[in-house]
């Protein structure tokens, strides 16, 4: 199974019924594909719809209905249109149950860096800072290493997205929960040993007893 599919499948298991969930563009948006049919959630796109649906049929696209990446989407029955002030009011005000975001780096404090690489890539933070500061649960969905280099570090070297401990980090190799004590290794990837995880991770990981495998 491809790394991204492993991650998306595992994150999908974290989503609880009847919640409001924001999926970032790219890898996080794949999570919707692996949600069990019986789990009903409302997906929010920060550009302004609660109840984001799948891609529309060919020829039925509405130019006024897209996701935050600009791709055509649909609205599910029961959807609500909102403007950007309401959208971020919901995010900042603690009404968003979960956000799933990509990451460049996560560190032992559970802090996330995902919005710029100084001197190289300055796309702007978009909604990421509000999402990480405001969502009830923040899940980072990312591949474990970048070109073989660890992304889970003692301390982020890139600019932080927020000074807030994220809720969970899911990679193809591991599920890691940031806690007040540090990063706790909760699960290993389907084809991964704990030793492999530790050697692909710069940060100290707390390993308590047997580490179960992801069930995906």
């Amino acid at each position, binding site marked *: 199974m491809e790394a991204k599919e492993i991650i998306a499948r595992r994150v999908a298991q974290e989503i609880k019924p009847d919640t409001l969930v924001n999926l970032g563009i790219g890898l996080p948006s794949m999570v919707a594909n692996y949600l069990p049919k019986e789990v009903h959630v409302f997906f929010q796109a920060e550009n302004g719809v609660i109840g984001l649906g799948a891609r529309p049929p060919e020829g039925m696209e509405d130019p006024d209905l*897209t996701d935050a990446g600009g791709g055509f989407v649909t609205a599910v029955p029961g959807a609500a249109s909102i403007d950007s002030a309401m959208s971020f009011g919901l995010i*900042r005000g603690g009404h968003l149950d979960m956000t799933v975001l990509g990451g460049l780096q996560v560190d032992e404090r559970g802090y996330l860096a995902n919005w710029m690489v100084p001197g190289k890539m300055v796309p702007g933070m978009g909604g990421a800072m509000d999402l990480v500061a405001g969502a009830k649960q923040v899940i980072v969905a990312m591949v474990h290493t970048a070109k073989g280099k660890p992304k889970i570090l003692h301390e982020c070297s890139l600019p932080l997205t927020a*000074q807030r401990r994220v809720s969970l980090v899911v990679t193809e190799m591991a599920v890691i929960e940031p806690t007040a004590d540090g990063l706790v290794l909760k699960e290993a990837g389907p084809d991964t040993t704990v030793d492999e995880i530790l050697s692909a991770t710069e940060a100290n990981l707390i390993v308590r007893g047997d580490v179960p495998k992801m069930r995906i």
Partner: protein
Amino acid sequence: MKQSMTAGDAAELIPDGATLLIGGFMGVGSPHRLIDAIVERGAKNLTLVANDTAMPGKGIGKLVTAGCLSRVIASHIGLNPETQQKMISGEIDVDLVPQGTLVERIRAAGVGLGGILTPTGLGTLVENGKQIVTVNDQRFLLEEPIHGDFALIAAHQADYVGNLEYSLTAHNFNPIMALAGKTVIAEPQSIVPVGVISPDSVKTPGILVDHLLERQPDGS
């Protein structure tokens, strides 16, 4: 009742050097005919306040390509490499603002508040140089209001007094920006007689709108 005007006439109202609040999110819900007319007029030295600069060749992206902008206040420029190049070359000053902070700063200007107190950006680069205000032992960033000389708004439908309705994700920044421009120009997809839009469906009251663009000349 309002008189309608052409996009060209609207663009003539906007002097070089003005600050424009322009609605839209990656080109969705932007006033496209107004933007084309501003490019056509060859406006210079504009300050743009918008969520993003779309993509080259689309919506606000056209203002970047045409060299109309000297300053951009936005949350995201990642999908427009031209904006990034012009930022690096120094042609355009870019202020990056978290999206929720951006829209709320514009709202603060529109509703007469002195700024906003937000947790977003605390402990990040966004904090630099800003007042921090403590309320009940919690720290917040004070972010200042953002006013515009003009707000350029895309709407789904208007009536003759300028009441506006929006559609789906084409709402985005438009209803908020309509509060914060000294002059508000709305570009609706259609214009209907007074009474067709129910009071409960109005999202921007017509009293906020100064000028209404005529419907598309070809009727499309």
